[in-house]
C-alpha cells in the first residue's frame, strides 16, 4: 500500500507555498504592473532567514560549538526539536515574522531599479539580482553552508510524531495561504488596490492626481517580497533543508506561469493556476511515481518534462488567452453599488448597470 498521506500532504503544502508566492506576484504584477522576475530571490531570503535563525539559535541553546552545517549538527537540531516543542515553535513563528520584515526591506531596495527602468529591463535586472544572490550564498560558506546548504531544519510539529507533523504542517500552510489570500484580496479591493491599478495603467495620470507612484511601487514590492519571504520560511521548514540550488530562476517562471494561467489581476484565478501547476509539478517528479509504486521507466530524466510543460504553458497562454483563465474583473466597491442603485431609481436607466465603472 502506497503511503498516499505523504502525497496528499506534499500537494497541500506545496500548493500553499506556491499560492502565497503566486498571490504576491499577482499583487506586484497583476495589480501594480511591476514584473518582479526576481521572485525566487525574495523567496530564498525567507528560506535563508529561517535556516540561519534555526541553526544559530539551536546552537546557542544547546551550546553546540562544532561545524554548524555538518550532518551531526543537523541531527542534533532534529533531536533538540523533538524534545523542546516550545522552543522550535517559537523559532518558527519568529522566523515567519523576521522573514516578513527582511523580505519587505529587500523589496523596498528592489523598488529603486523599479523606479528607473521599464518593465522588461526591470525584469532582466531582477533576474540578474536573483542569480547573483544564489551564486553568493552558494559560495559564501559562513552564512549558510555554501554549496552543501543547511540541513536539519526541524519541522515545528516534530514532537507530534512524523506523520502527524506532516499533516499539521500542511494544514498550517494551507491556513496561512488562505490568510494570504484574504489579505491580498482585501488589500487589492481597497483604495490602495485601486491606486495600484492606476499606477499600472497610467503612471503619469496617477501622479498628476497627486499620487506618489514611486512610493506606491516601493510599498507593493515590500508587501509582495515580504509574502514571498514568508513562503520561503515555510519551504525551509517543510523540506527541512535550505540549498542554494533550490532557488533557480525556473521557480520564478513556475510562479509566472501560475499567474498567467489563472489570470493576472484575479486572485481566485491565481489560486486555480497555483493548484494546476502544483499538480503538474508533482506529476513530473520521480518521487510521485515512487510513492504510487509505479515503475516509470522513461529513458530520460522525467524532471525535464516538467520544464517543457511549464514553457509550453507560458507560450500557449500568452498566445491564446493572455488574460488568463479568469480575466481581471472591473473594480466593484460599495460606493459604486450605491451610486448605481441611486441612478437606477432616479432615472430608471438599466443600461447604466452595464456601463464601465469609473476608475
Amino acid at each position, binding site marked *: 500500500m502506497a503511503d498516499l498521506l505523504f502525497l496528499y500532504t506534499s500537494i497541500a503544502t506545496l500548493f500553499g507555498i506556491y499560492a502565497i508566492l503566486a498571490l504576491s506576484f499577482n499583487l506586484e504584477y497583476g495589480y501594480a504592473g511591476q514584473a518582479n522576475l526576481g521572485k525566487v530571490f525574495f523567496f530564498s531570503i525567507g528560506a535563508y532567514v529561517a535556516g540561519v535563525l534555526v541553526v544559530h539559535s539551536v546552537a546557542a541553546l544547546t551550546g553546540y560549538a562544532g561545524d554548524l552545517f555538518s550532518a551531526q549538527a543537523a541531527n542534533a537540531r532534529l533531536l533538540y526539536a523533538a524534545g523542546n516543542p516550545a522552543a522550535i515553535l517559537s523559532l518558527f513563528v519568529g522566523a515567519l515574522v523576521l522573514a516578513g520584515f527582511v523580505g519587505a526591506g529587500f523589496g523596498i531596495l528592489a523598488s529603486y531599479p523599479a523606479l528607473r527602468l521599464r518593465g522588461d529591463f526591470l525584469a532582466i*535586472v531582477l533576474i540578474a539580482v536573483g542569480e*547573483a544572490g544564489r551564486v553568493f550564498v552558494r559560495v559564501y560558506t559562513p552564512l549558510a553552508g555554501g554549496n552543501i546548504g543547511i540541513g536539519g531544519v526541524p519541522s515545528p510539529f516534530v514532537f507530534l510524531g512524523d506523520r502527524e507533523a506532516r499533516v499539521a504542517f500542511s494544514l498550517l500552510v494551507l491556513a496561512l495561504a488562505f490568510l494570504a489570500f484574504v489579505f491580498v484580496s482585501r488589500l487589492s479591493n481597497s483604495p490602495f488596490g485601486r491606486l495600484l491599478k492606476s499606477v499600472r495603467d497610467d503612471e503619469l495620470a496617477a501622479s498628476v492626481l497627486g499620487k506618489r507612484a514611486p512610493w506606491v511601487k516601493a510599498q507593493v514590492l515590500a508587501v509582495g517580497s515580504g509574502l514571498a519571504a514568508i513562503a520561503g520560511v515555510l519551504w525551509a521548514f517543510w523540506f527541512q533543508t535550505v540549498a542554494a540550488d533550490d532557488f533557480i530562476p525556473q521557480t520564478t517562471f513556475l510562479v509566472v506561469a501560475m499567474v498567467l494561467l489563472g489570470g493576472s489581476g484575479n486572485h481566485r484565478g491565481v489560486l486555480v493556476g497555483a493548484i494546476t501547476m502544483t499538480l503538474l509539478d508533482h506529476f513530473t517528479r520521480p518521487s510521485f511515481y515512487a510513492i504510487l509504486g509505479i515503475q516509470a521507466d522513461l529513458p530520460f530524466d522525467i524532471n525535464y518534462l516538467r520544464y517543457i510543460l511549464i514553457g509550453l504553458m507560458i507560450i500557449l497562454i500568452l498566445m491564446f488567452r493572455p488574460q488568463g483563465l479568469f480575466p481581471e474583473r472591473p473594480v466593484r466597491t460599495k460606493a459604486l453599488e450605491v451610486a448605481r442603485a441611486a441612478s437606477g431609481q432616479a432615472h430608471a436607466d438599466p443600461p447604466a448597470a452595464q456601463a464601465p465603472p469609473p476608475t
Partner: protein
Amino acid sequence: MVELGGPLLDSLLLGSLYTMMALGLTITYKVTRIPNFSHAELVTVGSYAGVVAVNLWGRGLGEALLLAFVSSAAIALAADELVFKPLFRRGATPLHLLVASIGVGLVVRYVLSIFANLYSILSAKSNLLAQTLVAFGPGANLTTLHVWVPAATLSSVVALHLLFTRTRIGKGMRAMASNLDLARVSGIRTVRVRRMTWILAGGLAGIAGTFWSVYAPTDPEIGWRALLWTFAASILGGFVSVYGTIAGGYVVGASESFGITILNAEFGISASYKPMIALVLIVVVFLIRPTGFAGLTVRGVLDGMRTFPTRAAARWRALGARLSGFLSGMRNPRE
C-alpha cells in the same frame, strides 16, 4: 605580481565569444524589440550541433560550424514564426514577449536535454582539440582556438558592418529599428527583413556555441549560464548598438578574466564568485547609465572626465535630498 598572461588570452577568447553571442541578441532586440531570453538556447543548440557533427558523425570544424549555423538559425526562425511574430501582431507588451521568450527557452532547453540524455551526451566535449601554438607559461597557451574565434568574430563584425551599410536588407533592419511603421510604408519588406534578422542572430549564436563546445565541455545549461554574460555585454553596449556591443563583449570578457584573477590574487576572493561579476555589471549599468556605451564619443568622455568632480558633488547632494524626501515620505505617506 599577478600572472596576467592567462587572463589576457582568456579575455581575448571569451570576449570574442561573448561578442558573437551578444551581437545576435542586440540585433534581434534592435529590430524586433524582444529581449530574447531564448538566445541562450540558440547557443546551446549550436554547441550540441558541433558535438554531434564532430563526435557522432566524425566531421571537421567547417561542417560542424555549418550545421550549427543552420540548426540554430532554423530554431530561431521557427521560434519567431510560431511564437514571437503572432504575439507581436496582436500587440503583446515587451514584457509579455520577454516572458514568452523564457517559455520558448525552457521548451528548447529541456527538449534538448531529453535528446542529450537519450544519446548520453549530457556533458560532452567536442573531440576537436585546440592545438597549442605558443606556450607563454603555465595556463597561458596560445592555441588555435585563440586564433579561430577572434577571426570568426572579426569577420562576422565586418560582415555585419557591410550588411548594415551596403545592402538593402541591412538598411531595412536599421529602418525597422528606428521606426517600424515608417519602414513598412516606405516599402521595406519587413517580414523578410525580420526573418533575415532571426537567421543571422541564430546563426551567430550557433557558431559561438560550436566554438564553446571546443573550448569547454558542453551541457544543456551552457547557453543559460552564458546568457547573463551575453546580456551584460549587450546592455553595456546600450542594447541597440552593434558597435557598442562589440566593446561590451570584450569589456565583459576582460572583466571576467582579469577581475577574478586580480580579486583572487590580491584579496583572496574565491574564483567561484566569477559569475557574480557579470550580474553586478548588468545591475550597475542599468542603474547608472542605461544607454551603456552607445552614443559615447571621445570628446564626450573627455568632457565627462573634466566635469566629473562637480557633477559627482551635485549628484551626491541630489541623492541626499532624495533620501530625505523618501524618509519624510515614509513618515508621512499621505502628505
